[in-house]
């Protein structure tokens, strides 16, 4: 690779297209309980990446011969047909399957599976628009949807994606940056790679360390430590979102209760009046 091109790629990564700093995340928007027909759901936007997730209540596992003392998770990760531009069908299907199993492994440690033996919880994830870090967004959405479905959990799972390009470490990649960080290197000792780290921040536990590329072991570990700090911030944000949602629901509940009381009072008045007649 000519050096001119190499430096220009580096320039491109250094000055990110949306003007972010290397360790800055895209703006996030989260909505809970967006789908009315399921037990729990969440919608998340990370920049242009949009993911929706719904969780179905526990149901008995089909065709199971033996009793399983721990409940199971079933995760389906799918891209919407219009979400991606240049991936081909077969490749995409493989990636979907792979990401589904990564998500399962990332969420399993957080869910109290002993609470629903012999049952399984279905989690369906749709990526509506993929502009990078879709897997991380999907994991966040799924853990929020699980919380929304009041599935007992040990904590919220956060996920962050980072790309490594030589000495540059970028957080929360876009599709373009993902491509640049996963190019092959001809020279031996240049670091390239993408790390997706799912964490239970409350306990400082990594639930799934998934990475690919060509990396030095120390560089990898240092980046993972940095990502641990980054996911703490996201964890706070998610906690706040859940709290707000709970407060809002409680308030609505209270309001509807007071309305009900008023109605009841009116009813009582009516019924009391009747015998007097």
């Amino acid at each position, binding site marked *: 690779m000519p050096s001119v091109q190499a430096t220009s790629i580096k320039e491109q990564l250094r000055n990110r297209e949306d003007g972010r700093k290397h360790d800055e995340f895209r703006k996030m928007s989260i909505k809970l309980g967006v789908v009315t027909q399921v037990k729990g759901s969440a919608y998340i936007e990370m920049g242009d990446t949009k993911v929706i997730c719904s969780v179905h209540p526990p149901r008995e596992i089909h065709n199971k011969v033996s009793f399983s003392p721990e409940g199971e998770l079933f995760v389906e990760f799918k891209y919407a047909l219009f979400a991606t531009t240049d991936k081909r069908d077969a490749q995409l299907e493989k990636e979907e399957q792979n990401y589904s199993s990564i998500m399962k492994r990332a969420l399993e440690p957080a869910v109290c599976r002993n609470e629903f033996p012999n049952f399984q919880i279905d989690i369906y994830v749709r990526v509506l628009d993929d502009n990078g870090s879709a897997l991380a967004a999907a994991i966040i959405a799924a853990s929020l949807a699980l919380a929304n479905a009041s599935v007992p959990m040990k904590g919220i799972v956060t996920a962050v994606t980072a790309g490594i390009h030589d000495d540059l470490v970028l957080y929360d990649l876009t599709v373009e940056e993902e491509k640049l960080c996963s190019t092959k290197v001809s020279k031996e000792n240049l670091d390239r790679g993408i790390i997706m780290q799912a964490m239970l921040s409350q306990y400082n536990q990594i639930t799934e*360390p998934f990475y690919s590329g060509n990396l030095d072991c120390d560089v990898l570990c240092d980046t*993972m430590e940095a990502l*641990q700090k980054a996911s703490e911030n996201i964890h706070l944000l998610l906690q706040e979102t859940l709290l707000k949602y709970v407060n809002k629901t409680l308030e609505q509940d209270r309001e509807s209760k007071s309305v009900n009381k008023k109605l009841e009072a009116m009813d009582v008045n009516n019924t009391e009046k009747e015998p007097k007649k």
Partner: protein
Amino acid sequence: MSELVSLSLPEKTFILHGIDVNFRNDGRSRLDCRPIELQTKIMDQVNGSAKLKIDDTEILVGVKVEEDTPDENSPSEGKLEFFVDCSANANPIFEGKGGDELATEISDALSLAYKDVFDLTELCILPSKKCWKLYVDVLILACGGNLFDAVAAAVKAALYSTEIPQVKDAAVDGVEADIFVSDDIFNSVKLDVKNAPLLISLCKIGDNYVVDPTPEEEVCSSATVVVAVMPNGRTSGGLKTGYGSLMVETWRKAIQIAKKVGVQLNNEIMKALEEEEKLGPNRALFGFL
């Protein structure tokens, strides 16, 4: 993945306590591997093959080479595809679709490990017209634990033994490209595997990691870290299996162990393969299975 063996609590405690004092059931210490038996070029119908045996684990790998057209996105690269088959011979639970989950998990791990480091440009014949596609088919004949490592080692050996037909001539006729392959079957090119990674899985039992776990040890573990280690000590991919989670510091420890073990294992396997090659076609074959 469903468990291959079932152990009672006292049995598990026994294994756990043994590992705490660095003494495993079969007398190994935590970082010892079991002896590996490896044999290449054992099948005539394919371009490369290998059979690997670690204790009860038996893996058979065949590599087929076929002509194909390169992807639009990478016109100067060939293709590499992994397929893993968990035979019902190995364990009754693999019957029907029972082994599919494990099989995809292993083939995903293999493609993850090879994706960013294996040089596919040497498989290109004519950019954007013709390339070689390698089909790496893995058959798991028997499992005695540590499938990830065993499969990756067998795949590396099979790729090492792979011979790609020598292209005599290539011509572009309009849109169609034609290649002429040498008639002499001994006239072939060897595949370069100096960068090919191995998978090292580290089973976390208690506070310690063990390498090359037996099925009994795998049952005792809550999380297994699988790291792809290249011969130069760098890493090209990693993931976790099992239901547990890990601290960052524990993860760092795992990577360091994997690096050490991986480099050593890579060296040993390459040494063995070169030695076998030196024996030439007249080497003694020790039966097929």
